[in-house]
């Protein structure tokens, strides 16, 4: 390839990387909070679907994606409340509840989609999502400008949300208590803080952000809902958290890495003449996760109290 072609190729892949990474970023950032507080939520896929559907439905009826987003967060918070009630208050097994959330998320959104929208197939597609915004000066930059700085608002928001998340986690008293709760809940208890309250808050943050990650698919990246539109992204987000070593910026960059693989495989297919089976490219993120486990060994240690319900004495 000529240098120019390589630059445009890269620029386009990077732009797509960012867009494809956005749902991972939101969802995995939320899960970082949840897991840092010691609660493992494997039901992210279900929560994302619920977010995607509520955002879609509310945007469809109000015509405003902002309301859709608000609704998605509300839906996510409701999920979070239920999840925390079961796993924190009732000390139910987190894996079981997570697995159930995936089942309910898929079933409920599909059922409601059919019940509410089956009669309006054509019109259902007609609503405005967040459209791309050009950033005045940056978008004039050669090659990268036009491509990188013509994104929708949720994509632009990601570094700021992660920044806010990192700030919350590392620079506030709340974040300090979250980080302590996942590691050593007894210390938190002995410091006079309520382990349960902190876990509730973290699970709520986690589910709200997962719902936003799902909503992105229906009110920003595209403007439609399909049953199972999340296509396994919730599970990838789980892997992102592990590889990103439970840190917000780690989650951000690993999300971008996974987005990059996704974009690259779509792009490589589009370039005629490359004949790698597309399944191989699709498998890359999962292979990568396994490789990371083997190479990082025990350095990738999860929060010590992850998955363990806390019983105060």
């Amino acid at each position: 390839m000529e240098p120019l072609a390589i630059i445009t190729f890269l620029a386009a892949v990077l732009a797509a990387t960012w867009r494809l990474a956005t749902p991972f970023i939101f969802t995995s950032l939320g899960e970082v909070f949840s897991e840092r507080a010691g609660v493992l939520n494997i039901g992210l896929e279900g929560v994302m679907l619920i977010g995607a559907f509520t955002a879609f439905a509310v945007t469809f009826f109000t015509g405003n994606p902002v309301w859709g987003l608000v609704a998605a967060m509300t839906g996510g918070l409701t999920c979070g409340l239920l999840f925390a009630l079961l796993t924190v208050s009732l000390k139910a097994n987190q894996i079981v509840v997570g697995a159930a959330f995936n089942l309910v998320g898929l079933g409920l959104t599909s059922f409601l989609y059919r019940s509410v929208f089956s009669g309006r197939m054509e019109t259902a597609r007609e609503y405005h999502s967040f459209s791309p915004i050009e950033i005045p000066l940056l978008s004039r930059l050669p090659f990268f400008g036009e491509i990188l700085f013509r994104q929708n608002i949720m994509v632009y928001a990601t570094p700021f949300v992660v920044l806010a998340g990192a700030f919350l986690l590392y620079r506030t008293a709340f974040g300090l208590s979250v980080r302590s709760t996942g590691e050593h809940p007894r210390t938190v208890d002995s410091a006079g803080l309520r382990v349960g309250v902190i876990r509730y808050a973290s699970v709520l943050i986690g589910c709200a952000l997962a719902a936003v990650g799902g909503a992105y698919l229906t009110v920003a990246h595209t403007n439609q809902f399909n049953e199972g539109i999340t296509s396994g992204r919730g599970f990838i987000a789980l892997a992102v958290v592990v590889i990103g070593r439970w840190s917000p910026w780690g989650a951000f960059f690993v999300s971008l890495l996974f987005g990059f693989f996704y974009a690259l495989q779509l792009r490589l297919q589009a370039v005629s003449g490359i004949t790698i089976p597309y399944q191989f490219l699709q498998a890359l993120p999962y292979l990568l996760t396994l490789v990371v486990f083997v190479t990082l060994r025990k350095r990738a240690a999860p929060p010590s109290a992850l998955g363990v319900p806390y019983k105060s004495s």
Partner: protein
Amino acid sequence: MKNKIWRQTLFILLLALAGGCSGGVEKKTEEGVFKVGLLSPGPVNGQGWTQIAYEALLQIEQDLGAQISYVEVEQSPALFERAFRDYASQGYQMVLGHGFEFQDAALTVAKDFPDTYFFISSSKIHEGNVIGVDSDSSQPFYLMGVVAAKMGRGAGLIGGVEIPPITNAFIGFINGVRSVNPDFPVSTTYLGSWTDAAAAKEAAFSMIAEGADFIIPDADAAGSGVYQALNETGPGYWSFGIYNDYTSQAPSNMIGNYFNDYGQGLVNIARQVRDGKFEVKTNVEFGLKDKDVIWVEFEEGRVTAEVLEAVDQAVADIVAGKIDTLAPIK
């Protein structure tokens, strides 16, 4: 302990309720009612492929007054046989398995139910009362290829999963392109999904960045991601609506729409079945020759007279059998 008893009682009550009413809901099988069933490989309201069959079913209900029913069997072949058998044993005269994957199951069941016709979409089978019904998408795609090669710089095809109905359509497209300009670049991407509209959108962006200005999806519900990508990119990039009118999704990008009124085709067949006039000679294959089933409409003013002329010529040649749209690509 009290708690447990309460729970048990509740459950028994529920069971009793459920059992008690099951008697009342049994559908009465009326003599002379024409019944048509559908096995859908995915959600019936998914756009594209699965929706076609569902709408066909609704049309049969409307036009022929048939009693209809459908079942979504996901992608699990293990479930197919049972669904066929259930329909057939309930006296359905016609059951459509919407996809080649239903073929094995239909063949097994058909032996036991000689009075039911089993139609299989995307199949070329013809064995007793199991009949393949196919619409040859390679023909309309051939026409799109001709248009693309005459008007554009490069074309991109975005498929859901790499299966024959999709690959055949794409072969038709490439043959159309080659008939005009053998060097015209065409690239193909498979998403590995029928629902991931976001991936389709990104695939379209990738192709645009690679220099393509004709991007055509064949990916069911995911396909509308492609139209959104074009709509955002702006005028000068073109696509066709696939199976339906998608003009509203990218008004300034649509050259035209490829309509596939599979429903009409099925109504035609169903009418014959209902009237007992259906004669099994061969498998059914819709093509451009069936003008009420497959046709392409162009948007006003988007194509020149010269292009239209070439398209018309191609249609004539295809119908006449002079062009093999599925000719192997070198």
